[in-house]
């Protein structure tokens, strides 16, 4: 091939342009720490990166849902614990009243004690978390129970909210108050009526209902306990998943600094060489040798 002056210059220009392009890309990677800077750097990775962003934001949302569910479940759990203790204690008082049946004064004292604990049960039934009555089903804005004398009536409904805490994973957010508190109110009020009336058989009948009441409370507690441990387990799973996804994100979008830096210095050297050769272009031709 016949080599003309313009060919030399054109080739040098093309070479330098390519090197400059490579250098710019490598420097951009070094300064940003990212290798996925433009969609066209890798369309597939860019689309995957988007999916990853999505997954991470979903995980964050599940995390915040879990926190909310966990808070409400913990309050529910401790309320049910207190309820259990109160019912047990009322049962003891009732038994004692049955044993001291002939002493009217003692019966009155027991009745007063039980009434005071009944008040505590009512207050538990109307437990609020951030202003919402957690035992009222979905009617969270009004108290779950209203008291009338020794008994209380459920005002809520049977709605149980579920909360998404993972893909296809849900926990119950609330326990329906009528399931646990209504039996308690019924048996306590029957007990009080019998004590007030001095009805020994009535006291025994009322006391015999307590085991059913406690069973209902226990069953609710174990449901809440299960949900709480689901929430905790999901946190562990979520964290592992998050770590995996973040690692994948880093693989596709973060620059390998060592590689990028090496490329910068290699390209700089090549560029220097190309410019040095370029500076020789046209420096010498036959005219230099003709007198």
């Amino acid at each position, binding site marked *: 091939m016949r080599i*003309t002056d313009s060919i030399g210059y054109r080739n040098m220009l093309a070479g330098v*342009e390519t090197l400059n392009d490579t250098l710019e890309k490598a420097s951009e990677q070094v300064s940003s720490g990212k290798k996925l800077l*433009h969609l*066209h*750097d890798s369309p597939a990775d860019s689309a995957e990166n988007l999916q990853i962003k999505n997954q991470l934001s979903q995980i964050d*949302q599940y995390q915040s849902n879990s926190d909310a569910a966990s808070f409400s479940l913990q309050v529910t759990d401790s309320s049910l614990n207190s309820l259990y203790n109160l019912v047990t204690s009322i049962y003891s008082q009732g038994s004692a009243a049955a044993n001291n049946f002939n002493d009217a004064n003692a019966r009155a004292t027991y009745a007063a004690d039980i009434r005071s604990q009944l008040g505590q049960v009512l207050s538990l039934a109307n437990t609020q978390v951030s202003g919402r009555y957690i035992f009222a*089903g979905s009617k969270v804005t009004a108290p779950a129970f209203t008291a009338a004398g020794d008994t209380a009536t459920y005002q809520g409904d049977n*709605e149980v909210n579920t909360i998404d805490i993972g893909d296809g994973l849900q926990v119950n957010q609330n326990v329906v108050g009528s399931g646990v508190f209504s039996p308690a109110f019924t048996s306590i009020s029957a007990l009080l009526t019998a004590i007030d009336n001095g009805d020994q058989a009535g006291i025994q009948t009322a006391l015999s209902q307590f085991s059913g009441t406690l069973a209902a409370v226990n069953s609710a507690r174990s449901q809440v306990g299960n949900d709480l441990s689901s929430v905790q387990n999901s946190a562990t799973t979520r964290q592992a998943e998050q770590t995996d996804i973040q690692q994948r994100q880093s693989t596709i979008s973060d620059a390998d600094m060592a590689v990028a830096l090496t490329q910068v210095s290699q390209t700089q050297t090549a560029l220097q060489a190309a410019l040095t050769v370029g500076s020789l272009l046209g420096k010498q031709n036959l005219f230099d040798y003709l007198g």
Partner: protein
Amino acid sequence: MASLLSGLEVARQALQAQQYGLDVTQNNIANVNTSGYARQRVTFTPGEPLEQIGYQASEGVRVDSVQSARSSFLDYRVNQELSQQSQLDASSSALQQVESLFNENSNSGLQSSISNFFNSFSSLANTPEDASLRQQVLANGQAMGTQFKQTYEQLQSIQQSVDGQVADTVNQINTLSSSIAQLNVAVASSRGSDSNENSLRDQRQQLVDQLGGLVDISYCEDNAGNLTITTRQGALLVAGNTSNSWHTVKSPTSGNLLAVYSGNTDITSTIQSGTLGGLLDVRDSKVTSYLSSLDNMAAGIISQVNAQHAKGADLNGDPGGNFLVPFVQPALGSNEGAARAISVAISDPDKIAAGEVGAGTGSNTNAKLLADIQNQPLLPGDSASLNQHYQNLIFTIGLDTQTAVDGLSTQNQVLTQLQNQRDSVSGVSLDDEAVNVLRYQKAYEANCQVISVLDTLTGDLMQMFGGSG
């Protein structure tokens, strides 16, 4: 040699011829950096032979012609590759603007606003009667609508600016066509005469190269030296001494974008390459399809969210109304305009239908289902979810840009190679010219020597015959 004096005449012509050779060489050297210049060569021819008794000799040398070193095949190939290169250049530069709009590799963008919107329903499900969470849903819904509108309009403004470039490019094409037609006249009239045909051809070829960069052309030269130029699909640009001027007309059927007309014929869709081809492809095919993806996504969101919202009950226990302003298709199957129209229809946060119909204000069933819309099939007859739709769009934009950017870098190499090949034929080499200088100089010197010898001989002769000199 017929006589000593006629020998002087031969030498004089030879001096002239060598001088002419030097002139052409000098012109080549002067144009070593002139783009489009093809090196020129002098061809000499021996003069008419003089018949003498017993021997035969030519009467010196004549300059026969000055020819440009051109390969019309390489010229044509370079022209075609220039079209290709300009097309990729135009589309890669426009598409890179587009992709920066969708740079979801950073932490903002449409995806974030979509996620935020649907996740705010999920947060609402934790405390459905909470006023501030309800307010948050409305705010995030509005933010998503704004982001859709903004992205759409930015994309449209790129389309508009490409449209402006279409008009500019058509003007440049017209200017070049008319200059080439004028040069056709000049080349034809200079043919065979002792004039500057070569440099006129150089000029014309350079304009043809520029024209080839703007639009895909094919051309051929007739016997008179006229170039006829058409697009590869046959739309006329130059014939002989006339150029066919194109014009642009706003096309109401395609969003008031410009259509390119040759005479009364709309040739927009026939232009395939060159800057104009690249611009039209980005404007009519690429950006249009991105815009319609956004419209489809927005229309899908509007219809899914409203349908689900209607199934729930708001804080007052009433059935949910439209959460987003409903979108009416301008024509069957067309969602055009949805991305600009998407916005929240309600301003009262109590109207968000988060709960189940008939349940209390704490019911969260519908809020969860609303949040889940982002993972469900979005459009009828298509299993892809909203997120998948958007991922596909991002992938397509990335791939289109990558194809143009990588194609451009390959095309640059191809073009460099071809231009080198063409220069190898047509370009000026200073080494070549140095040899030519030397050649003509030596020949000139030798002829001077001949004249000097003839001078001596005639002097001797005169002296011999008793001249005083």
